[in-house]
């Protein structure tokens, strides 16, 4: 695998666009305060959410990025994705002032987009009508939002992307699995540039589900638990020769991908992470990249606040990289973004390569600069995916 990353677009608690993202990460751990503001949620309303502590895209104004018209029926996730895509395409020079810049055009640009829970809020909204009123009152223009791939479909419509549009759902591993999807499409000539990444939103049903399961950090004092975040991030990937031919700036290269699955031994269990799977995925990614463990400067870990899963991930990573490497649990800065986490992991590595400090460092020592890094993502059901990124 050899993919050139030529652009980044991010919608996050730090703002919208590459500059906002990199500026926040340049503050190191200070970025966390921007993400986890004091004060009430802008998404979750009502008594059930009074204690909610979330890292939201604060002050989100879709009109500032999508204009005033044409998106009334779109849900929050769809709008995040479109804004992230728009910024990524501009950042990569795929589009200039909203128009495709030759040699790229609509048929040559596609999207591989991940989400874990998709438009759960839109489904709930429709269920409220169907269950509490009457299904005859369902708004048919909102119905497509219940379909998981619709959000990415709207991105293609909005940005006129006619190369393949692929949605990937693999829990928290989705965005990195979408990297392989894009690589496969590029290899087979199904397009020349792909948006790769994903999005996730804070929503009432997801928050309540995690609260019922007892995995949220809210109200806990032991430093454990999931802190819910949201946002969307895309990188633009191309074959290096194609990027060079059109004179694009290459910010980094994705050189290797690895994935593995390992279920729990107990038949009664469902939620699980195994150190063996983490080790196997990381070694597979390194092997494909032709990079030795000691050549890496940092690892973006998937550490999300669920003790057993985090412990297994670290055990697996340390079997490969040992104790000294900088392990960065970046979800500390912006919360758990589930299916989008791998995309934000890639965005973190880009910021580090641009000079931002590796932060926070959960174990090991921060390097002076980052030339190569591994991004790790861990699903809740035993799947693990990793990529190796180099300058």
């Amino acid at each position, binding site marked *: 695998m050899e993919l050139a990353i030529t652009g980044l677009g991010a919608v996050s608690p730090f703002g919208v666009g590459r500059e906002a993202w990199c500026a926040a990460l340049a503050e190191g751990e200070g970025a966390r305060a921007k993400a986890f503001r004091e004060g009430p949620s802008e998404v979750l309303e009502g008594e059930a959410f009074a204690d909610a502590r979330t890292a939201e895209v604060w002050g989100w104004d879709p009109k500032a990025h999508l204009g005033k018209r044409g998106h009334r029926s779109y849900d929050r996730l769809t709008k995040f994705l479109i804004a992230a895509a728009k910024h990524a395409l501009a950042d990569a020079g795929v589009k200039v002032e909203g128009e495709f810049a030759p040699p790229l055009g609509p048929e040559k640009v596609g999207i591989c987009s991940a989400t874990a829970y998709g438009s759960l809020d839109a489904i709930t909204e429709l269920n409220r009508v169907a269950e*509490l009123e009457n299904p005859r009152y369902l708004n048919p223009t909102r119905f497509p939002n219940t379909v998981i791939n619709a959000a990415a479909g709207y991105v293609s419509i909005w940005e006129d992307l006619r190369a393949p549009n692929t*949605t990937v759902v693999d829990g928290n591993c989705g965005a990195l699995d979408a990297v392989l999807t894009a690589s496969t499409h590029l290899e087979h000539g199904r397009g020349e540039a792909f948006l790769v990444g994903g999005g996730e939103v804070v929503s009432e049903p997801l928050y309540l589900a995690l609260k019922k399961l007892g995995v949220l950090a809210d109200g806990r004092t032991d430093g454990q638990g999931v802190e819910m975040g949201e946002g969307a991030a895309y990188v633009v990937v191309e074959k290096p020769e194609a990027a060079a031919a059109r004179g694009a700036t290459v910010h980094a290269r994705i050189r290797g991908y690895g994935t593995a699955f390992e279920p729990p031994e107990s038949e009664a269990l469902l939620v699980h992470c195994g150190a063996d799977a983490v080790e196997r995925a990381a070694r597979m990614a390194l092997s494909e990249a032709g990079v030795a463990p000691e050549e890496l400067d940092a690892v973006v870990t998937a550490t999300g606040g669920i003790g057993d899963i985090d412990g297994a991930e670290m055990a697996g990573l340390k079997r490969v990289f040992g104790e000294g490497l900088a392990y960065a649990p970046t979800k500390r800065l912006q919360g758990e973004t589930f299916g989008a986490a791998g995309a934000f992991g890639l965005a973190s590595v880009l910021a580090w390569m641009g000079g931002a400090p590796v932060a926070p460092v959960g174990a090991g020592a921060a390097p002076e600069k980052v030339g190569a890094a591994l991004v790790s993502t861990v699903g809740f059901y035993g799947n693990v995916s990793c990529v190796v990124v180099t300058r």
Partner: protein
Amino acid sequence: MRRVFVTGVGVISSLGFGREAFWRSLVSGRSGAAPIELFDTSDLDRSIACEVKGFRPRDFLTAAEVRRTGRCSAMSIAAARMAVEDAGIGVEHLEGPGTSVILGTTMGEANVLGELEQAWLHQGEDSVATGLIPRYGTTLLPIHVARAFGARGMVQTMPAACAAGNYAIGYAADQVRAGRADVALTGAAEVIERLQFAGFCRLGAVSPDVCRPFDQQRQGLLVGEGAAILVLESEESVVRRGATPLAEVGGYGLACDAHHITRPHPDGEGSAHAMREAIRTSGLDPRQVDFVNAHGTGTAANDKVESKVLAQIFGDRQPMVTSVKSMLGHCMGAASAMEAVSCVLTLQDDVVPPTMNYEHPDPECEVNLVANAARKQRVDVVLNNSLAFGGYDAVVAFAKPDVLPNEARA
């Protein structure tokens, strides 16, 4: 690039469980349509669907599997067990990182989510069964299937709405070709759920009685459900274990209309591109295609656009065309996987199943339809066509083993 073969298929459908029952029903023109029993339809304007009736998970799943799965995953596991048995592939060939599971769906465990939300919205969060929550998640379909067979490679869900089966099969073939997997269990599953059914009704897409693809008096689709799994193997794996392939997976084509979230592009540009790519990457030209399994939903827009695309691609030499949705209903994410199984069985038996309920030719749908009765005719190459919400277009080619040119491997 390595060659990829289908060595086994398994189906849970409204027309029966397993390859034989499914195929016998399709060839005889039997319909799976009946009044809906899964939920109350008295407040909806439509009440007919192609439900999977009499599916008892415990007939196919272990007690532990039943406890941790919803209906969609349970049907996936059941279909996968049938496919594995059909392939005659022992567990020793499936265990380990060489086996991947790549499945499509539109909404996955939609009825688990429906149950959770009904409890929450009607009775408050305290009434939500905590133990049910982890069973929701589109991610879970391939996880459960991988677990059932000891697969330790890639586990991936591709939610591509009504083209999800083709997306998954095509991508699984990509991974086997590239050497990232030796064996892939692939296909798709979908369940009928109240909100989704109501949504299709509100879109005005559901027929009040039967599904009449390509008929001038067509009134829409019938919603269906089920699961279909195919065992894909590399040529090396087939040779190593002395298996007999059912079919070869040819090339596939993908495109995005980037036009409208639910309606196809009026000129079918994306659909035509996907079909051309499926033919080209199979190393074929259009004259070598014997049969197209149409998306054929029975809606006004789909069948008209699809007919236009077939005319563009094949001109005066139209291959046979059929839509088994006239019998199976539109199984949404599972549709193109179930129809892929049908395509494979056509290649096996040289029989094209019929498009039922066809009475009134439509001048805007002039296709070479196999109408109302199955046709016995040699079929070497099949295209499985699909279109979907999101403007997704996906076409997968299947051929009799040893028909495709050696250089053609997508």
